């Protein structure tokens, strides 16, 4: 539906912003609860943290990072157009530009997160 409706880039940018925002909100609520366990139930916390290091956990971390990075870059694009309305004319170019940064920053980070499970060379740590 998102792709068939004729809202094009502007609407997709908005929909992705909203979906990633709600997803990050849900993660933040869970994350504060798990950090609370560091004091409240340290054994449970150590068990939960092993999930982060597992393969499904790392895939979820990558998705979280992707949501965060998209939301951050598109948020910057929104702020830019709010402060400088003339840039609204280039909202599509800005959106594609944000995907270039997303790919350039996201791929190395995704590689490094996945490297330990597959025994790949880690370049940054």
């Amino acid at each position: 539906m998102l792709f068939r409706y004729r809202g094009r880039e502007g609407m997709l940018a908005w929909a992705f912003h909203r979906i990633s925002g709600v997803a990050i909100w849900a993660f933040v609520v869970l994350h504060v609860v798990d950090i609370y366990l560091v004091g409240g139930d340290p054994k449970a916390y150590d068990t939960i943290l092993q999930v982060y290091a597992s393969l499904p956990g790392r895939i979820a971390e990558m998705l979280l990072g992707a949501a965060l990075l998209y939301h951050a870059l598109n948020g910057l694009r929104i702020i830019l157009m709010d402060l400088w309305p003339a840039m609204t004319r280039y909202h599509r170019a800005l959106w594609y530009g944000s995907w270039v940064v997303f790919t350039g920053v996201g791929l190395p980070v995704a590689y490094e997160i996945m490297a330990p499970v597959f025994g790949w060379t880690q370049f940054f740590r």
Partner: protein
Amino acid sequence: MSLYSRSGRPRPSGSRRELVLWYLMRITGLALFVLALAHYLILHFVFDPAEQNVAFITDARWSQLFWRALDWTLLMLVLFHAFIGVRTVVVDYVHGPRRRRAVIWSLYAIAAAVFVLGTSVVMTLPSPAMN
């Protein structure tokens, strides 16, 4: 031109409170661009989650007041930004004044609980290395 969405919420003009929230969303958004991305990079990229456990937090992270203060600042910014953002989504999709009020107040109740949990652990967690 005006056929296309600008993708952000237009600046509210009817209510002073909504206008203040609109500005605060942008200010906290800019701060989170730096702080939330840095937080993610430090804890998923610089340090591998496989090396992290309770001892990592008590001895290496929250042994310094700086990181506790920064994490609490991040918590305050993200609580505001995330809950006011979800509130905007609720206002868009939940109609009927009673139901909307009920959902928004449940949202604030969750925010208050998260504030208490997060603040208490960051302020009280004992750290053997801290002096």
